[in-house]
């Protein structure tokens, strides 16, 4: 889409764009470029020269079973938390959309979780799900040792998945509900006159029309699970126990800033960048298709 009426003095237009250009050059393109450069060299921490090593850094990482374990964990985390968040949000949105008594209240309260900082809810859930105090501790009174995210890797993984999903149910809910409400009422009324009951209308009309939103949220949630998870992991488990919750971004941070392996961290960043870009491109292809839909 383009405007017909524009201003002729184009240098003023460029002047308006200058602040953003300086910012994205300095804080986006330069670092992104540098990440590529570093991933191809061996960096001394805190500047101290570098040696060109080509793809060695990548080779080293891709040969490292610890790295692959973190990739696998990230995928498990991403799929589980995205599924949980989207499923829960879809059910809630569908019911709120029925506009029964109290739907206004639900509409307001159900999005609160998204406003909470990941580390804050991380700390809250760490307490809620602590083995010796809080909400889940009763499990250990029934059967001692049944629940201990501090020692059991699976428990720790469950813990961060639950915390992350709780936040993103609120987010997905906003989008599902607004998509549901954007469906013209006439379509639903037409279906009702055709004799379709609520469940049938949901299945035949509303859910198919939600597919674009499902795809959109799928990509957003997966992307966010790579980045927004950092605060939750750092506060709840610090990657432990025994690396059981060391997700990709956490490993980048840990290798780069704790291990001072800039080159390794840069190479991992590049891989993650490519991954996220692929997801975004996928989403774009879909959005483009959606335009034809209309």
């Amino acid at each position: 889409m383009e405007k017909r009426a524009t201003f002729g003095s184009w240098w003023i237009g460029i002047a308006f764009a200058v602040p953003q250009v300086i910012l994205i050059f300095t804080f986006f393109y330069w670092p992104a470029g540098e990440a590529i450069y570093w991933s191809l060299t061996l960096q001394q921490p805190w500047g101290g020269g570098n040696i060109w090593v080509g793809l060695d850094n990548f080779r080293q990482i891709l040969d490292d079973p610890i790295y692959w374990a973190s990739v696998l964990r990230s995928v498990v985390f991403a799929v589980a938390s995205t599924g949980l968040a989207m499923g829960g949000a879809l059910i809630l949105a569908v019911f709120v959309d029925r506009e029964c008594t109290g739907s206004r209240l639900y509409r307001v309260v159900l999005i609160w979780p998204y406003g909470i900082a990941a580390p804050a809810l991380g700390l809250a859930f760490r307490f809620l799900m602590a083995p010796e105090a809080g909400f889940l501790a009763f499990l250990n009174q029934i059967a001692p040792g049944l629940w201990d995210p501090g020692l059991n890797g699976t428990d720790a993984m469950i813990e961060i998945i639950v915390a992350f999903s709780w936040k993103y149910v609120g987010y997905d809910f906003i989008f599902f509900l607004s998509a549901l409400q954007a469906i013209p009422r006439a379509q639903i009324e037409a279906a009702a006159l055709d004799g379709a009951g609520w469940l049938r209308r949901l299945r035949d009309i509303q859910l198919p029309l939600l597919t674009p939103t499902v795809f959109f949220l799928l990509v957003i949630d997966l992307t966010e699970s790579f980045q927004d998870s950092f605060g939750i992991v750092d506060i709840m488990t610090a990657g432990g126990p025994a690396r059981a919750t060391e997700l990709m971004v956490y490993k980048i941070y840990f290798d780069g800033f704790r291990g001072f392996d800039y080159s390794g961290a840069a190479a991992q960043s590049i891989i993650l960048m490519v991954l996220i870009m692929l997801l975004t491109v996928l989403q774009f292809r879909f959005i483009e298709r959606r335009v034809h839909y209309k």
Partner: protein
Amino acid sequence: MIERTPILNLVTQLVLFVGLVVALAPFVFVAIAATHDLRDVNLVPMPLLPGHNFIDNLATAWHRAGLGPKLVNSLIFAGGVAIGKVVVSAFTAYAIVFFRFPGRQLLFWSIFVTLMLPLEVRIVPTYAVAANVLGPYQAILDITGITSLVEALSGIRLDLQFGLLNSYPGLILPLVATATGTFLYRQFFLTLPDELVEAAKMDGAGPIRFFFDIVLPLSRNNIAALATIMFLWAWNQYLWPLLVTTEPEHATAVTALKSLIPNEGGIPEWNVAMAGTLIVMLPTLIVVIVMQRWFVRGLIASEK
């Protein structure tokens, strides 16, 4: 529409009520835990009647994590990001939509790409830039040979140094350097009728006047929406503030939470930890509640 669906209505109410409980329970649990003393908070199950130590716990958490100055830092940080985004994005979107200049498409796409790569994945080199924000420009001077040229001519070795670590600009600027807001504005600007521009031209207004007299006032809703989501987003940032602020007096409230985690084997002061959590989550919760309308609108508009 008249529908008699008593069972479905019951199911609806039941599901939604469960959802409400799940959404609210953590808030309630945190708030109650923050009122207990050390013994009560560690009881299993934890008593659900509030205790009497609320104020004490708040005070302890406040002092232990140094929340006073850190909340101020957070406020400046999140406010700075929100204002920066609102201003810079509006400028850029205005340039993209209302002008035709050479390289406009290139600009559009180069901004668009920034949507794809969040700060978290390019964190290491961005940190290096923040350590010396003039580094990129020094490198350009070095590579193009200007440094050696100047050195040969004047004997002065150019060495551009300007660190942003432990400073507000260091916290704020990298977070402003993405495209979220630009596209929000762009979508809105494209809905403004062409005749508005033409009427302004007939009235004798140039591009700068048109921006400040017409476009900005009409963007009020977008500004409110963008400012809300950007404030929340920045307030909730964790990794970047953690890296950029190495000195405690520059840290933000969210990163301060780390100091409240009870140590393994230490005293399990969950009551204090929860009091701190409550203090940190309260500002954003209030923003969400007060600005709900803008928050929802901004999210939906900026992501689509």
